């Protein structure tokens, strides 16, 4: 049981896919100007990651090794198109804001990385947990970055005005991709210096 819990909790902080493995940074820069888009993106990625891990784990003994990666890609691409279609049908406004980035979940290294590194060797249930953990780890970073950017850039959080425009002028740098780059850089530095000290010493 503790072991299973660790599969989910590990990628949240100590082995976070974004800040520790530095995967999926592209979308973390692109969709984090607003918290609401970041949340939808997180949900979409977590769903795709869980499903792809489970499907690939179930097929793991049948997939011929030579075409392993192309099969993974095929499964992931199908799931991403599904997610995109569903978003377009049910949350049209948000899907317009996410535009190409939902499609780009395909290229998100976390999905492919987890399929290769975990789902191919482990049974479906454990793979599901691994997908969930990594998806949540990505979500935490995405929402943290989006919160900072929306707050400092537009003075709002989830569309609610926090810093009144009468005395706070939005920092445009935060709304541009370089702003996210700086924040993610600081997060990575902060985690490696203060939080994961023990891990680093083990290395």
């Amino acid at each position, binding site marked *: 049981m503790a072991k299973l819990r660790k599969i989910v909790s590990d990628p949240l902080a100590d082995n976070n896919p974004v800040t520790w493995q530095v995967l999926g940074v592209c979308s973390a820069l692109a969709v984090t*100007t607003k918290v609401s888009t970041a949340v939808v993106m997180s949900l979409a990625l977590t769903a795709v990651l869980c499903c792809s891990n489970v499907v690939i784990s179930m097929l793991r003994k*049948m*997939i*011929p090794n*030579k*075409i392993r990666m*192309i*099969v993974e890609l*095929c*499964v992931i*691409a*199908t799931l991403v*198109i*599904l997610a995109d*279609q*569903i978003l*377009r*049908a*049910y949350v*049209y*406004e948000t899907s*317009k804001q996410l535009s190409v980035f939902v499609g780009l979940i395909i290229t998100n290294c976390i999905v492919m990385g987890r399929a290769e590194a975990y789902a191919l060797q482990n049974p479906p249930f454990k793979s599901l947990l691994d997908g969930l953990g990594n998806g949540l780890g990505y979500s935490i970073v995405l929402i943290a970055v989006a919160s900072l950017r929306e707050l400092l*850039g537009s003075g709002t959080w989830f*569309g609610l005005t926090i810093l009144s425009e009468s005395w706070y002028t*939005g920092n*445009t740098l935060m*709304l*541009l991709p370089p702003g996210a780059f700086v924040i993610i850089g600081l997060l990575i530095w902060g985690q490696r210096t203060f939080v994961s000290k023990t891990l680093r010493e083990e290395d």
Partner: protein
Amino acid sequence: MRDQAKIIGFATAVCLVCSILLALVSTALGPRQARNKANDVKSKVLQVFGVQVTDASGKPCVSPEELDTLFKQRITGLVLDSTGKHLPEKAVADLNPREISEPDKTSGLKPFYPLYIYEDPETQTRQYAIHVSGKGLWSTVKGFMALKADQSTIAGIVFYEHQETPGLGGEIEKPFFLNRFKGKQLHADGTLQAFRITKPGAQTDMHSVDGITAATMTCRGVENFLNTDFAVYDQYFKNQKAVN
């Protein structure tokens, strides 16, 4: 040999399953997606006429069915070609977004120009909404502009799609900028005037609005396509007047 057959067999199976799944989902969700798209345009048109269809945060506050009825009751759509001629065989609902917003590289004109006519249920006065679009700095900017019954006074404008820099060119979608257009005139003494978006702080007249600081390139793009689009619609209005 056996191995290869197995690989090909497996690949075919995976492809088949995936494509059948996608085809099913696409057919099942297709109508819903098409309705979302159509409603999006309808709500934009109603908005530019000043009908309240979204709340302060931009979320729709009327149901899709209500939106449909509102639109049907109050609005008629016409399709014009690039010379301002009415094409009776075309309906606005059949136009795809590319046809009305991607200009031809050499002429700068678009294949079709939708025109929406709004009739106020109480006062019976008419308003017109024209579709305006063209290059900003990074992207194609798309919007609707409403004209009053005189076909010259600007009643309102919205930009519903663009990928300009947030905080700089992206400010063109904000009310503070859009409100500057209200009440401006396209014509002086019956002739179409060049519409200007001036440098911030410069003197403005009836045919110009104040631009946005640090968004010169976007404003220049908007100014250009507004004038190109005005010319097409103006041709239609002129022809109409000649007929009457």
